[in-house]
């Protein structure tokens, strides 16, 4: 009989020999809830399949236990926590400036929005007025980051459907933006650029020249890349009518961002609850009525165009002035609570900060859209095929760094 050696839990040096059975992802303890008991009971002709934690298309370290009947997914149970770093706890023991370094790598694809929300919350706690130039710089860099994130989304979407080329074309756009932001902030991905009361550095020549070169060709490039997928029969047939999320369900699932706008809800925090200088800027909130994966994909394309519009306005209307408010070096807000939310490329990035008057936040809650949206996979997938699981997951665009905090 074949056997496998296991490390004992008590002493890592003791190796035990045990007979192996069929490896099933059923947890080795009694079920904790009715739902768990129901899920881990196999019906006739069903089997479990363990997708992840190492899987090419789970966008990070996610494990999804799929209950399948042939190729059809009956039910699924995402298992999180492989990337859990306890950022909220870390933030409670760091001073206010340090928290930005902690929240930065949460959602590493669009890190600026992870900085923006806590910074806004702390500004509310401190009652600081942010200089207008700083706000414009924030909007400008944030919209650039949104485009970079959406570009990557389109590539991933195609890659999860088996297309090899779009991700590399997307990376051309993303890399140019990322280099541009590196010229502005000093880092490529984890910028650590926003400060409480402003930003870290002013616009510089290097950034502006790169931005100008890119802006002159960006929208043509985006358009050209899209002809590969938007009219492709295989792509459209796979995406249309898949994972339809209606208006009521979108609200019931607490979802935000492009995923709900594709279901016909014009909920964009930039307009619904304006912050920064967005009330002064002209842009549309694109919405779509279908609510399927194709709508979620196409909506992000429209958003890229709107972001280009916003960047253009920011460059035209950039005021002069200081880039940071005057603040004491050690930040001690008076006791209070503040909630700040920004509209990121995936939805609402929010921070709920409680101050108790010391130099460290008493409680810092970080709300990440990926976490909320990943639930919807469990709602939209059952009844579809295994391949559709990836398509639906990709269309909701979760990033595991944000999901697991």
């Amino acid at each position, binding site marked *: 009989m074949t056997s496998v050696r296991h490390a004992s839990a008590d002493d890592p040096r003791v190796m035990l020999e045990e007979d192996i059975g069929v490896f099933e992802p059923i947890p080795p303890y009694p079920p904790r809830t009715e739902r768990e008991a129901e899920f881990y009971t196999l019906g006739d002709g069903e089997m479990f399949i363990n997708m992840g934690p190492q899987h090419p298309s789970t966008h990070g370290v996610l494990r999804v236990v799929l209950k399948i009947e042939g190729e059809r997914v009956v039910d699924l149970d995402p298992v999180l926590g492989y990337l859990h770093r306890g950022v909220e706890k870390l933030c409670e023991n760091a001073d206010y400036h340090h928290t930005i370094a902690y929240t930065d790598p949460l959602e590493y694809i669009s890190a600026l929005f992870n900085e923006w929300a806590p910074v806004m919350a702390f500004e509310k706690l401190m009652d600081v007025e942010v200089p207008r130039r700083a706000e414009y710089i924030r909007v400008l860099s944030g919209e650039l980051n949104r485009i970079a994130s959406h570009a990557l989304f389109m590539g991933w979407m195609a890659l999860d459907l088996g297309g090899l080329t779009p991700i590399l074309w997307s990376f051309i756009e993303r890399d140019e933006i990322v280099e541009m932001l590196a010229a502005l902030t000093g880092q490529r991905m984890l910028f650590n650029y926003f400060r409480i009361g402003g930003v870290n550095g002013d616009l510089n020549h290097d950034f502006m020249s790169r931005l100008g070169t890119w802006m002159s060709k960006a929208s043509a490039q985006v358009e050209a890349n899209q002809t590969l997928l938007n009219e492709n029969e295989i792509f459209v047939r796979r995406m249309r009518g898949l994972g339809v999320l209606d208006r009521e369900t979108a609200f019931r699932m607490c979802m935000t961002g492009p995923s709900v706008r594709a279901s016909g809800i014009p909920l964009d925090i930039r307009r619904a609850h304006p912050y920064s200088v967005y009330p002064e800027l002209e842009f549309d909130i694109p919405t779509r009525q279908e609510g399927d994966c194709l709508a979620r994909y196409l909506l992000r394309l429209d958003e890229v165009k709107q972001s280009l519009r916003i960047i253009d306005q920011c460059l035209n209307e950039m005021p002069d002035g200081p880039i940071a408010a005057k603040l004491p070096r050690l930040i001690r807000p008076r006791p209070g609570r503040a909630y700040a939310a920004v509209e990121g490329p995936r939805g609402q990035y929010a921070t709920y900060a409680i101050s108790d008057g010391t130099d460290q936040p*008493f409680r810092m*809650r970080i709300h990440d859209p990926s976490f909320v949206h990943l639930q919807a996979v469990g709602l939209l997938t059952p009844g579809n095929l295994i391949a559709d699981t990836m398509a639906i997951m990709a269309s909701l665009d979760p990033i595991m760094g944000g999901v697991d905090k």
Partner: protein
Amino acid sequence: MDRALKRRLEARFGERLLGPVRQRHDETEIRIAPGDLPEVMRTLHDEPEFGYEALMDLCGVDTGTVMQTVYHLWSATSPDWLRVVADGLSRDEPRVPSVTFLWKGAEWQEREAYDMFGIAFEGNRDLRRIYMPADYTSFPLRKDFYLPDDAARSPGGGVRHMEQSQAPTNAEPDARVRRSRLS
């Protein structure tokens, strides 16, 4: 600050509010008892004068003396965030009704609050740990959490034996644990 919202809230929930409606910047905060939560939430969600259809955030808070659950709501009827605080949960056995009957998407956020604070949400069909391993025994975001002690107790906590032996396993709960000086 939306004064009209404050008046509406006071008129509608006068008795149930545990304190005055607080407003600061663009936030309006009401505090209610945990038992009133389903009714208040249903009112806020269903009645067109409020129309709070979107639950933007749900989290738990440990103030060091009591537990709270905090809900942030958004509505097109008001420019403010509405913050509903279910106040005064006991730290020993925090229990609060679930809001999954209104927002199914609150399920995972409640699981997270359960995982981090041990708050039991009554009515959540799937209340189990979401980040921490199943055999984890303590609740990390509580204010009396002490990593070497609490993590070492559970085999899945990731504390190796060498570290465990060096940790002061019988450390007294320190008097310096941050207690609330909150408003």
